[in-house]
């Protein structure tokens, strides 16, 4: 009995330890896809570059178009293998990925975060590889400044710039008896049109984002459009001025639309994704957002392209402007030199070539067009306007975004001053302003003036503590 118990005990221990060790070691490995079609010419193993592809939920055709472009890149660069993953930048998920070290080699971030991430040393320095690009010194200096540190070193490539636009549903306009070819040009007209739409059709005439930091973002858009500023810089000191005239006017406007006209529908906790969803579903007549959302509306929200219209945001008063922003493609700080070089080559191919090289632009437009993806989405120049206009001329045969529907934006944006987002503690400022916007939209008697003063105090203390 004793020997049997010994044997059982020993066997049991061995088995348990083996199973536990196998379970622990097997969980971490990622299998690389087998390299198919790699040419035998290069002596080195192709390096695998992890890049971001599209927003999850984009339709299959969009992914097919992306895969086609990946294939084109791999054919031209046999020493690089692309491994793509779906990706959407949102405040909470980016932090988790950054902290967990799971960001791919190439990922995208908005302008607002670029400078702080550079300061915190969380983006790779790609100055050397960047300077090898032949268009490195033709960038619009304001745009390039978003990816440079104080010494001018480059930490990312600006890939897109956007202004703010007033998006409207042409079909809803028609159904409500409004002319979709003469969209509102003042805030009063927006208010009147919103009331018409909501009275006649029972849907939200005008919607405003209010959640997940987008409330503060769009409130800042509304503030800039009325000549206000959220933060003022004097010397090196930043003062938070959330209770400026522009913001007060904007909140009063929202209050009036919500409580007097009742033209804002019944759902007020909207963020970037859900407002796009509502708009794409024909539940919202008008709203403000970045000028680049067409792709999301068509790909992810299934909107009928014929219903989409975009115009510029009405500007009111001196110092008014449109909030500008953009996207940066950056490299994971943990990437080694080989991966950094490969990353810059990918970013050059996928994000930049179509902006400056005719053949690349045509190929990109053709690929997208064949998969029914949007070509000719409203955008702002990364380099200069001449280059931008030329790139549009090159691809004019493939443009499938009805330029008449967005001409109101394209024609008007040139005349609007582009104002960058507030620099200091932007996301915290937006989060604090979310609360104010939600209060105005859900509480008739919200005292937004004192709430804005609280926001001033709250964000100022964060700035002073830096």
């Amino acid at each position, binding site marked *: 009995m004793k020997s049997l118990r010994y044997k059982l005990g020993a066997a049991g221990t061995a088995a348990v330890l083996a199973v536990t060790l196998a379970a622990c070691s097997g969980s971490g490995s990622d299998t690389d896809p087998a390299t198919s079609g790699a040419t035998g010419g290069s002596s080195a193993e192709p390096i695998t570059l992890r890049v971001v592809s599209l927003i999850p939920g984009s339709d299959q055709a969009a992914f097919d178009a992306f895969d086609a472009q990946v294939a084109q890149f791999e054919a031209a660069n046999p020493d690089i293998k692309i491994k793509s993953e779906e990706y959407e930048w949102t405040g909470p998920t980016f*932090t988790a990925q950054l902290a967990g070290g799971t960001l791919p080699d190439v990922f995208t971030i908005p302008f607002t975060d670029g400078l*702080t991430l550079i300061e915190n040393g969380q983006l790779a320095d790609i100055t050397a590889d960047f300077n090898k690009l032949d268009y490195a010194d033709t960038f619009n200096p304001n745009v390039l400044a978003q990816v440079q540190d104080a010494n001018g070193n480059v930490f990312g490539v600006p890939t897109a710039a956007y202004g703010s636009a007033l998006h409207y549903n042409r079909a809803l306009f028609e159904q409500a008896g409004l002319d979709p070819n003469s969209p509102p040009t003042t805030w009063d007209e927006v208010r009147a049109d919103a009331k018409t739409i909501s009275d006649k059709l029972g849907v939200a005439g005008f919607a405003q984002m209010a*959640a997940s930091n987008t409330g503060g973002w769009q409130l800042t858009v509304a503030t800039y459009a009325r000549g206000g500023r959220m933060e003022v810089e004097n010397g090196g000191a930043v003062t938070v001025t959330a209770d400026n005239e522009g913001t007060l006017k904007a909140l009063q406007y929202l209050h009036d639309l919500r409580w007097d006209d009742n033209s804002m529908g019944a759902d007020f906790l909207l963020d970037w994704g859900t407002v796009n969803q509502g708009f794409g579903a024909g539940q919202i007549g008008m709203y403000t957002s970045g000028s680049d959302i067409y792709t999301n509306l068509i790909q992810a929200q299934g909107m009928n392209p014929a219903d989409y219209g975009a115009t510029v945001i009405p500007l009111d008063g001196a110092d008014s402007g449109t909030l500008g922003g953009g996207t940066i493609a950056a490299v994971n700080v943990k990437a080694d030199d080989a991966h950094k070089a490969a990353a810059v080559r990918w970013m050059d191919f996928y994000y930049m070539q179509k902006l400056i090289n005719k053949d690349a632009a045509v190929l990109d437009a053709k690929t997208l067009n064949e998969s029914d993806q949007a070509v000719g989405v409203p955008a702002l120049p990364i380099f200069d306007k001449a280059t931008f206009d030329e790139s549009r001329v090159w691809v004019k045969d493939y443009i499938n975004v009805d330029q008449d529907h967005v001409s109101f934006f394209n024609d008007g944006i040139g005349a609007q001053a582009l104002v960058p987002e507030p620099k200091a503690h932007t996301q915290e400022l937006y989060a604090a302003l979310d609360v104010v916007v939600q209060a105005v939209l859900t509480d008739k008697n919200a005292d937004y003036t004192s709430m804005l003063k609280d926001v001033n105090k709250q964000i100022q203390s964060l700035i002073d503590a830096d």
Partner: protein
Amino acid sequence: MSSTTSRQRVTVVTRLTRWITGGGLSTLTFLLPLLLIFGIFSWWPILRAGVMSFQETNLVTSQWVGFDNFVKVFHDPSFFIAVKNTAYFALLALVFGYPVPLIGAVLISEVRRLKGLYTALAYLPVVVPPVVAVLLWKFFYSGSATGVFNTVLGWVGIGPQPWIQDAHMAMPSLVLAATWGAAGGTVIIYLAALTSVPPELYDAAEVDGAGIWRKLWNVTMPQLRGVLFITLILQIIGTAQVFLEPFLFTGGGPANATLTILLLIYRYAFQNSLGGDYGAATALSLMLAAFLAILSLVYFQATKRWSTS
């Protein structure tokens, strides 16, 4: 080498041998997976959280700051809002959500036929994945006149309600959805406990002229008090940690009306896209854990008199 140590050493070896031959090794073998799994996934993260609460850290770089995180959290205006809202949620859940499973279980136990069917129906909401349930309820709670609940209210002549769009209605709406999702599990527990109530007590009560409610109050509840006390403290601990409903329904809105402690912890850790304040998040987690631990101790001391164990 003194004779004492050699005797001690011999004793240790003998004791070890006796332990092994007595089956100690196999005991350890069976314990090992438990220790490993709990250690890696449960106790180690708790220890790390404790350490992080005394640091200022973004998980990449960290420095010790002593009690600063606790002070910072305590002085944050959102902290008191979160505590107030969590207490409100727990209170509402107690008043409305605590009796529901008991009444449900009593009703089901009184039914003569199809008891199994009713039990299954009561448990069905628990089986639905919580996120799916919340998305469903979010759709039902649409504030427009054509929303599901508003349409039903319209049939009885009540105007459309804003539900989660209004700061005052938001928390009760969340409690309603949370109770729907969680009551079934407790119903099952009570049903099992009810079988242990001797039927003679009910007969005696009927003889004394007791109606249904008197029987419930004077016979069922005292007999069930052991289970009831446990489920009460479990409910308090559970509702103090509510996260899913505020996060998915309203994101803490409107205007922080549904901001709870767990949601605040989430915001500290994840809301800032430039790196979360994990020190503050873990500090608040520790404060909540300590509070609940003390509450439980006080609770068990206070109810010792009435408990059955």
